[in-house]
């Protein structure tokens, strides 16, 4: 059969998704799936590179890449400054031609006592302009915060390529 270039690329993408949707697996393709430490200023920089690579892998255009890397930078900085360090997990999600990147940032810090307030622009206890959480939320499509006082904070954020 004739194998056009686009046909081939479509098949390749579908195959990526397919291996993961095999029985027992989730619907999450994982060509890139890595957890990075966020414990130093240097880590804040290297995390950006890793997130950039993942967005390229997922086929995001430049502006979307920038949005996701910026959101990652905000979240990682939050974990570093407020959470006393933590980790950032990057996953490339695949639903056929629909691709996405999920960032999961965890810290074991003091937690956020008032999440609504923390999402309000201008509210901050550390450096930055207090746009960290709220801003990151605006740059991503899905955004959840799991936090409790003295039990740390986990922020999960996803951006898709088709919205």
């Amino acid at each position: 059969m004739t194998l056009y270039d686009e046909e081939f690329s479509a098949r390749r993408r579908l195959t990526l998704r397919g291996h993961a949707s095999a029985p027992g697996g989730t619907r999450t393709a994982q060509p890139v799936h890595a957890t990075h430490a966020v414990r130093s200023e240097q880590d804040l920089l290297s995390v950006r590179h890793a997130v950039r690579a993942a967005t390229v892998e997922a086929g995001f255009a430049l502006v979307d890449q920038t949005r996701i890397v910026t959101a990652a930078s905000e979240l990682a900085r939050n974990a570093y400054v407020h959470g006393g360090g933590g980790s950032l997990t990057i996953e490339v999600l695949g639903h056929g031609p629909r691709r996405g990147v999920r960032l999961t940032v965890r810290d074991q810090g003091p937690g956020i006592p008032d999440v609504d307030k923390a999402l309000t622009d201008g509210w901050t206890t550390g450096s930055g302009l207090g746009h960290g959480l709220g801003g990151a939320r605006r740059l991503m499509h899905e955004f959840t915060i799991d936090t409790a006082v003295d039990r740390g904070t986990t922020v999960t954020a996803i951006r898709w390529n088709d919205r």
Partner: protein
Amino acid sequence: MSPREDATRQRLHDVLCEREKEIADRWVGLQLEQTDANELDASDLHTEAAQLISALTAGLAGDTPVHRLVVSQGELRSCVMELSLHRARAGASPTDTSLAVLSLKQALLEAVQHTTRDTAELFAAAVLINRLLDAAGALSFETYVEGREEIIQRQSRQLLEVSTPVVRLWRHVLAVPLIGTLDTTRTQVVMESVLQAIQDHEAQVAIIDITGVPAVDTAVAQHLMHTVNAVRLMGADCVISGIRPPIAQTIAQLGIDLSTILTKATLADALAAAIQLTDEPTLATGGATDPAAASR
């Protein structure tokens, strides 16, 4: 795996090996009967059939349970997906596509019939073939739908690009005439192309003309504001022209503050303002007025 299933599987494997050509031909024949043959090229079908049958034979030689064989065996899987994508692009209907895969059942079963007349054995073979190829039918349908979705997405992306031209109107002045309903996606595409064009042309002023836009909602007005602010951050200026009465009303009712934005009634007025702006030294300020700039 029961011994009976093992034996049936072995039988199917042997039949596939021995009667490869016969099964392939029969399958292609069945497909051509079922569908509008003119859409499909018979030689393509033969190549597909040969590939799929050899993948199937290889898969049966392994020990993956039959109902998982199609999804988990790489070569088999990609054969089924290629076949379905090919049909999706050729414009075949989803039913035809699934049926094409499922008609392989008949071809297989007929081949098995040549090797045994024992009803119990035939029944076991039929069950096995069904379990094997039902998964293929499902995968084929799924792939078909995804292939179509991709085509639709690509077309809507292309349409978006076509519907948002950025034109150079004057030295250092760009214009974006927007026509039709603005939604969030389109406004975002506009924003990106305006900013890129500013960088490419070193433009000092970008005019967004919305004469052809029937209505805006809060989200779109917000995106327009974003566009203006982003243009300023890049060091250029933005003029919005052609705000029609209903849109002016909406903006007022929504309480959106456009006071920091330069607006003009017509594209012509906007162009005049833009030319005036480019005569002055290049300068843009994010938000508040700058005392140092004023004193200069």
